[in-house]
């Protein structure tokens, strides 16, 4: 009995000691002036997170390798500068984790029909990758090695989106969209970290290229303020455009693709529908994506002669276009639709595409570039979403498998599609990092 009573007293005492210790601990958390240095990071405040029905409770699988970044920091201090001491805290340790896609992400494609080569525009690593036209990456093979790669600081390639290959001499034209604001031109056999043969300064946000070989004119589609600037094909330096199409009447908006029909002397442009007069406050509005059609010599604030726009078109962030000059078929890389839409050049209004390449067999993921190879009756598509380019017969339609796939990353790889990341936010409730492009 005595033993039982003593054991009972011990249990009660232990419970009381635990309770007091707990209260003291919480009291110290809420009263920082009583806290003493412990040699490790300390919890200072515990507060109720806002509750929301939409916030998911993290499951066991959400638990990281370390409980917090402080664990990872170890004994290194994490303080910033102190105004009193005049010291500046400099954080030199490497990042704990890095989210980065090292694989190529292809924004555009063009084929050199004289030399049987295909050039893929790597927007992620700022490079041009040149392959044999018939290269094919079999299942199970991680990637196909390019024949040549034009890449490096000397090349001036950066955020490259629009490509053109000169059909006579194989010169490669590349438009640098964001920080570059120029067109760089390389000779066909360029390889490695080489300077361009020619550089032409262009308006900010140049995105797409087309060339009128008859008149020797270079067309540069500019995202915003929307414009199609036309230069001499051989222009360089800060040479001014011969003419420019821009203004409210043009209905250009966030331009992403330009294609020319030399037979019918037409220019077609893809627009995303982000509209505003950039110089006047409060003029912004949203419109549906569209394809606008102009005479090839259009300049100034000229209205389109036709507009393809509306829900039946399936256009959703339409990017680069290519034309079959014999049939008048317009092939559109339809980014968000994960599809290639084929319209007749004469289509107008809320027209449905005559053909749609789309589906799980196609290998399409965020297509952004297209090229029509009339010599071999093939259609090339550059996928921004999965480090690949795919090839179809020119008359492909529906959920068809490509006849060749050129991959630069393992099968099933999904590209991160990072652009110029300049901001971050953290959602503590969901334990997620927001990254806008």
């Amino acid at each position: 009995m005595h033993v039982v009573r003593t054991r009972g007293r011990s249990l009660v005492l232990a419970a009381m000691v635990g309770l007091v210790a707990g209260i003291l601990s919480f009291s110290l958390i809420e009263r920082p002036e009583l806290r003493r240095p412990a040699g490790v990071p300390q919890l200072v405040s515990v507060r109720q997170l806002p509750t929301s029905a939409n916030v998911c409770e993290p499951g066991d699988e959400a638990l990281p390798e370390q409980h917090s970044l402080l664990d990872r920091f170890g004994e290194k201090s994490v303080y910033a500068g102190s105004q009193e001491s005049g010291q500046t805290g400099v954080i030199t340790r490497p990042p704990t984790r890095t989210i980065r896609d090292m694989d190529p992400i292809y924004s555009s494609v063009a084929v050199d029909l004289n030399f049987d080569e295909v050039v893929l525009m790597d927007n992620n690593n700022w490079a041009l990758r040149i392959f044999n036209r018939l290269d094919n990456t079999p299942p199970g093979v991680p990637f196909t090695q390019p024949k040549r790669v034009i890449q490096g600081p000397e090349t001036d390639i950066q955020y490259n989106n629009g490509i053109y290959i000169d059909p006579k001499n194989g010169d490669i034209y590349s438009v640098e969209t964001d920080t570059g604001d120029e067109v760089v031109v390389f000779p066909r056999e360029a390889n490695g970290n080489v300077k361009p043969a020619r550089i032409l300064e262009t308006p900010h946000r140049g995105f797409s290229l087309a060339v009128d070989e008859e008149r020797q004119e270079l067309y540069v589609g500019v995202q915003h303020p929307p414009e199609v600037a036309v230069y001499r094909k051989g222009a360089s330096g800060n040479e001014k455009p011969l003419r420019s199409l821009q203004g409210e009447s043009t209905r250009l908006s966030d331009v992403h693709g330009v294609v020319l029909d030399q037979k019918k002397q037409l220019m077609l442009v893809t627009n995303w529908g982000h509209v505003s007069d950039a110089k006047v406050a409060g003029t912004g509005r949203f419109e549906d994506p569209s394809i606008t059609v102009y005479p090839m010599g259009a300049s100034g604030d000229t209205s389109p002669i036709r507009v393809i726009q509306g829900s039946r078109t399936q256009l959703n962030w339409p990017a680069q276009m290519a034309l079959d000059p014999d049939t008048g078929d317009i092939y559109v890389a339809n980014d968000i639709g994960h599809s290639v839409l084929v319209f007749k050049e004469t289509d107008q209004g809320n027209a449905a595409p005559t053909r749609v390449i789309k589906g799980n067999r196609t290998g399409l993921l965020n297509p952004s570039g297209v090229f029509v190879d009339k010599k071999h009756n093939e259609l090339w598509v550059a996928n921004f979403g999965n480090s690949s380019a795919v090839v179809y017969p020119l008359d492909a339609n529906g959920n068809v498998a490509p006849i060749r796939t050129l991959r630069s990353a393992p099968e099933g790889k999904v590209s991160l599609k990072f652009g110029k990341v300049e901001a971050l936010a953290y959602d503590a409730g969901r334990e997620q990092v927001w990254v806008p492009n």
Partner: protein
Amino acid sequence: MTHPQIAAFARVAKENEPPVRTIEGHKTLISRTMHGFSYDPIHDEIVVNSPLSQAILTFRGDANGEQPPIRVIQGPKTRILGADTGALNTVTADPDHNEIFLPVGTGLRGRGTGGVQGVYVFDRLANGDVAPKRVLAGPDTLINSPTPQVAIDSMRNLLIVKSGGALLIFNREADGNTKPVRVIKGPKTGGFGGGQIAVPAGEFRLKSSPEEEDRTLELL
């Protein structure tokens, strides 16, 4: 920018691990040049700029895919300019006070008309063509740079504006042609270049080490 998107990654994501969700597509109304971005944990909302259409978009915190924003601030009364002409590079939410801050600069490519150089403040619930509830602007504010940035310190009731190589500290509710209460500027500061700025949540302090007991982790 080839493909605008707002991607959400797991906190522990690394290398080329794909995002758990992305907001993208025409219906989202997002565009390129989203250089400022705010998550509002109180109301579980995302606030972001859509500079090519001179709009501020608010999404639900669980938005995914081609989901439209729940509110859009856009129109003549907003006096919002595009990114090139001085505004809408960034946008910052103040969830504690139900406000959205939009800094307006001189622009990288020419000054636009119809707007002012300073900071617009909109109500969090503003939707459509609405005027800012406050505009901090004028020569005394010292706000003078192509693309200023702002951060809110809710605990100390401060508005911090990064402009012209300086941090300008205002009362959070400063309005009109108001002088900053403090200015941090000079060669020892490093110049305050770069992009987005932030102030950590006021109630949270990370103590560093026993020797540096009174120092806190400040993110600038």
